[in-house]
């Protein structure tokens, strides 16, 4: 069985790599014959005047009074806003309406996707709670619930201006220019954007603006996703007070600073414009910005807070501590897949114009990578341990989704499947490495799912981007499409790797120092007595399952 699975996976992977790099068929050397003479001539433009618009009439009142069962009467010329009622409808009114329709489509798309991402918090909450023991259910759910409020508050008062205060106008959202303050320093003779300065409380400097509100909402739910990753690694022993302080600091400083570098007009995004490295650091929906930031902060927390009592025996051998509800875990994974369709396709911030119809491709890439990620993890566990482990299959799916998050807008479906498959295997290897070599206790596998695979996603973009995407003709201010090393641009891979070192060198160390300070002044870890009893009563004052009798020992060696 193992050999069969191994050989099928190898053949599939090799075939996939070949397909992903297959060049397009050569263009036909003879032009297709024109159909009729009219096809060869361009029709002369027809000028439309305000007078022409007078002849366009809405449906008659008696016709409208009969209702509109087939939907052909609802929405007509009478629905176009007229700027001067005395003059009547003008060409300018029509053009303004067209422009607002485009922006309206983009607003609606981005807002609905933002709401989907917000719902991912529910998925994370039940995945984490299911993978923890029943005696910590209330505590784990409460952390996942309150991280939303704490993170949003921190982001509103501090984080958002730091992240997006200098992003400039976003064309898909109407190009409002009010977020125009970026703090810049000169390094190597080039401008390096470090943090933004506009948008304080969403009130000052003209930032009480509809497009700014949309940018805030969309970026806020991304930030909250990063914050909730850490609660998984520190679960079952994190003092609630320390959790509140740590989450606030991450939402206010750590996350927004790196997000500014990548998405807010900072120095990483400008590596292409300033140093000729591809299109600069690219991260379509946040493998690096969201998932690696969360995963590396989780690693710092995991090292500082230490393992749960009973996770390692005195010889350092890891013990299995079973979660209490696999049904919750896999249901949570389904919720997360659903939310990911907001995360990735929504990151176009629009559905109309500028190549945004590629949202269909982004959505398919997302589905494929998640699927192959689940396959990769399931087959790995099946071959290595003899059973297709359910929780690791779920983690494999999430790993595939995490890995495709950065490249989803720039790669083809075959590359997506390969990226997901690698992620599914990588998450299993990483879990073993973190647990057995580093001896860091990560109850939900967040370091591996989000940290390791977030970094893999960033690198994968630098390898597999096929140069076929075109979001308005340029990316990060550099003309052309994002193209990876496998398609001829090694500079893009270098830009991605500089992003990876920034994540490790800046995000990890900053998170480590800040959480170490919290450990010194607040204390990160609950008492041993509270941990053994379960954190529900000592920390939260109520049990998650008050009517159940909980067994005191659940580790493989009886602690």
């Amino acid at each position, binding site marked *: 069985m193992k050999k069969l699975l191994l050989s099928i996976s190898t053949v599939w992977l090799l075939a996939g790599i070949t397909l992903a790099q297959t060049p397009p068929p050569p263009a036909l050397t003879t032009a297709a014959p024109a159909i009729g003479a009219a096809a060869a001539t361009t029709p002369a433009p027809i000028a439309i005047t305000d007078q022409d618009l007078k002849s366009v009439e809405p449906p008659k009142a008696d016709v409208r009074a009969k209702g509109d069962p087939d939907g052909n009467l609802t929405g007509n010329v009478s629905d176009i806003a007229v700027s001067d009622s005395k003059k009547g409808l003008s060409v300018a009114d029509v053009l303004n309406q067209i422009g607002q329709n485009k922006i309206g489509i983009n607003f609606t798309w981005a807002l609905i996707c933002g709401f989907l991402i917000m719902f991912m918090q529910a998925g994370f909450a039940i995945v984490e709670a299911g993978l923890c023991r029943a005696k910590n259910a209330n505590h784990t759910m409460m952390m996942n619930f309150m991280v939303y409020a704490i993170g949003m508050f921190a982001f509103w008062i501090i984080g958002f201006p730091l992240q997006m205060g200098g992003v400039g106008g976003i064309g898909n959202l109407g190009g409002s220019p009010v977020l125009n303050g970026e703090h810049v320093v000169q390094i190597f003779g080039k401008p390096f954007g470090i943090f933004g300065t506009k948008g304080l409380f969403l009130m000052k400097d003209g930032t009480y603006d509809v497009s700014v509100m949309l940018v805030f909402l969309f970026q806020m739910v991304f930030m909250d996703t990063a914050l909730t990753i850490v609660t998984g690694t520190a679960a079952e022993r994190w003092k609630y007070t320390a959790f509140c302080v740590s989450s606030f600091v991450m939402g206010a400083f750590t996350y927004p600073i790196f997000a500014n570098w990548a998405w807010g007009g900072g120095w990483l995004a400008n*590596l292409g414009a300033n140093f000729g490295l591809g299109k600069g650091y690219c991260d379509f929906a946040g493998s690096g910005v969201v998932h690696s930031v969360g995963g590396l902060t989780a*690693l710092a927390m995991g090292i500082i807070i230490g*393992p749960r009592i009973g996770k390692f025996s005195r010889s350092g051998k890891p013990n299995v501590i079973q979660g209490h509800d696999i049904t919750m875990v896999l249901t949570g994974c389904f919720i997360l897949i659903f939310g990911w369709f907001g995360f990735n396709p929504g990151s176009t911030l629009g559905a109309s114009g500028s190549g945004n119809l590629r949202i269909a491709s982004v959505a398919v890439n997302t589905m494929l990578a998640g699927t192959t990620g689940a396959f990769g993890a399931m087959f790995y566990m099946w071959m290595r341990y003899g059973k297709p482990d359910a929780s690791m299959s779920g983690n494999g799916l999430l790993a595939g989704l995490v890995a495709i998050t950065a490249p989803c807008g720039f790669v083809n479906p075959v590359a997506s499947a390969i990226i997901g498959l690698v992620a599914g295997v990588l998450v299993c290897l990483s879990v073993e490495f973190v647990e057995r070599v580093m*001896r*860091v206790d990560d109850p939900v596998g967040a370091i591996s799912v989000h940290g390791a695979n977030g970094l893999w996603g960033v690198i994968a973009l630098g390898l597999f981007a096929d140069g076929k995407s075109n979001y308005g003709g340029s990316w990060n201010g550099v003309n052309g499409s994002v193209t990876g090393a496998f398609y001829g641009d090694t500079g893009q891979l*270098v830009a991605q790797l500089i992003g990876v*070192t920034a994540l*490790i*060198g800046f995000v990890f160390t900053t998170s*480590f120092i800040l959480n170490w300070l919290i450990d010194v002044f607040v204390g990160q870890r609950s008492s041993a007595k509270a941990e053994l009893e379960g954190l529900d009563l000592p920390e939260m004052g109520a049990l998650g399952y008050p009517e159940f009798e909980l067994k005191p020992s659940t580790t493989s060696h009886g602690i």
Partner: protein
Amino acid sequence: MVIAGLAVTVLGFIISLASLTLSASAGGRLGIVLAGLAISLFGIIGLINKAYLKNPIWKK
């Protein structure tokens, strides 16, 4: 040891950043960035984590 680990981790990042001025070719920059990445990983896994494993909770 932890402080040294943090310093080494940041050093790796600085080295990769320095690739922007140390080399003009993509290949040269790639080599320097990979070296920086390896140094940063050593800082975390080889120094910081190792320092915390010297007196872990399971031996107390």
